[in-house]
């Protein structure tokens, strides 16, 4: 049996185990819904059109939050590499952002920017930004000196040096940094939504919690995890394969 088949079998076995345990034990608790009830709720929720609007809203917030946070981090890291002044300027801000608990950042952002989407974007960006800057700066320290010399001797323009040397060399760090913050960002979006929005996964959590509907909570968690998986396996991994296709 191939390794891949073994892995798949193991995953299925674990899932089956979890389902069985759930099916056997759910009515021993007074808070857990039955698998059957959850399944019914799942189907019903999928049939509601508003579900897709909610999923889309959360995805959109994640996308823009990550775009601002990650994009800002890449820019700042490249700037810091260029000059010492930037390093001194940026350093304290990164530390402060890093030290602030993410929930605090989320709340401050929502208060400052109103309970709007911008507030959510910046909450995510603020949490993600320092984590990525730190990963990227470490990567930038470790750039191959030999290749840098080559680009100097062959008179590459600054743009070419960034695009053809620094950025590709940073690719492993860029991907690792993204993975570090990806799941965190999803969780943060949902948390921010709990406080501020009228749609999205977080809003649905709030509703389910208010009415103590554990079946809805589980259904929305399944949706949430599915979205994270789609990004990881449907977007990130294929992209990664293309970026690293030069590796023999």
């Amino acid at each position, binding site marked *: 049996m191939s390794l891949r088949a073994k892995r798949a079998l193991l995953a299925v076995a674990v899932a089956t185990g979890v389902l069985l345990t759930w099916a056997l034990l759910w009515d021993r608790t007074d808070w857990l819904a039955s698998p059957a009830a959850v399944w019914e709720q799942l189907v019903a929720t999928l049939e509601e059109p508003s579900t897709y609007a909610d999923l889309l809203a959360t995805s959109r917030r994640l996308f823009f939050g990550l775009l601002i946070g990650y994009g800002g981090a890449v820019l700042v890291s490249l700037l810091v590499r260029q000059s010492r002044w930037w390093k001194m300027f940026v350093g304290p801000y990164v530390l402060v952002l890093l030290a602030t608990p993410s929930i605090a950042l989320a709340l401050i952002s929502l208060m400052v920017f109103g309970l709007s989407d911008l507030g959510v974007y910046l909450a995510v960006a603020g949490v993600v930004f320092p984590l990525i800057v730190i990963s990227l700066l470490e990567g930038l320290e470790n750039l191959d000196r*030999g290749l840098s010399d080559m680009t100097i001797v062959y*008179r*590459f323009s600054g743009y070419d040096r960034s695009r053809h040397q620094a950025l590709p060399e940073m690719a492993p760090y860029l991907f690792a940094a993204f993975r570090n913050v990806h799941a965190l960002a999803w969780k943060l979006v949902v948390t921010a939504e709990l406080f501020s929005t009228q749609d999205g996964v977080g809003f649905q959590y709030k509703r389910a919690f208010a009415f103590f509907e554990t079946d809805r909570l589980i259904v929305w968690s399944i949706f949430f995890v599915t979205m994270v998986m789609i990004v990881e396996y449907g977007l990130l991994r294929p992209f990664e394969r293309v970026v690293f296709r030069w590796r023999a």
Partner: protein
Amino acid sequence: MDRAKIHTLQDFIDIDQLGFTYLGSQRDALAEVTMSVAKAEFACILGPSGCGKSTLLNVLSGLVTPSAGRVAIDGQVIYEGGRRIADQMPPLGYVFQDDRLLPWRTVRQNINLALSSAGIGKSEWNEVVTKYLRMCGIEAWAEAWPGSLSGGQRQRAAIARALSIEPTSLLMDEPFSTLDEVTARFMRKELLDVWQRTGQTIVFVTHSIREAVFLADNIYVMTSGPGRVAERITIDVPRPREYEDPHLTEIERDIVDSVLEYWGYYGETGGTKAGER
């Protein structure tokens, strides 16, 4: 064998009293290096490890500024008195010990980048790349990733890249030292072949006496650190030369003693020279 420095109209690379000290270091890497290379000359710089020969190439290529001395290339003064004078370095091809191809770009893309940086128009790239890849015998691997090529093929790609910008001079830092001997021999012949066709000035750094004797018009023997040029040895053997030519062996034997002396092997501590008993 002449020690005098003779300025001729043909001086293409003129180095006068060059010195270099690493920041924070007491010892000089290079001290009072004086040499000149004629146009279209194949010059070998022969020195032991640590004598500063790579530093010398780094100075010529513009990577570092010397602490003292004057360097002129093709009549243009590049450095004087420890400062860089020229705004623009003349176009140079540089082949490093390790190929330093961008591993995430194909061979063709690597060369395209060098061409683009040298200000050569996009419309010419295809033609130029094909020409020099063919000259170096690796046309078939134009679209290959460097990681899928052997060491020799990668070095040939690096040489093609250096040639493609049609530089005034080619700097080569022990480019074959990481290759196996058979590949290295093949590459030396190829290099001479290419040199005869392009007529560029080549400054080739090596620590192998045999390699220097085979390749060079003139060998510039450097002392061990702080490096200085001890002697210029002209190799009068007509081309094409054979690596196993007994005449070359004779020359090698003649110069090995003085070379090793410059490199500090026959000091007061003893050791017997080859000619003595």
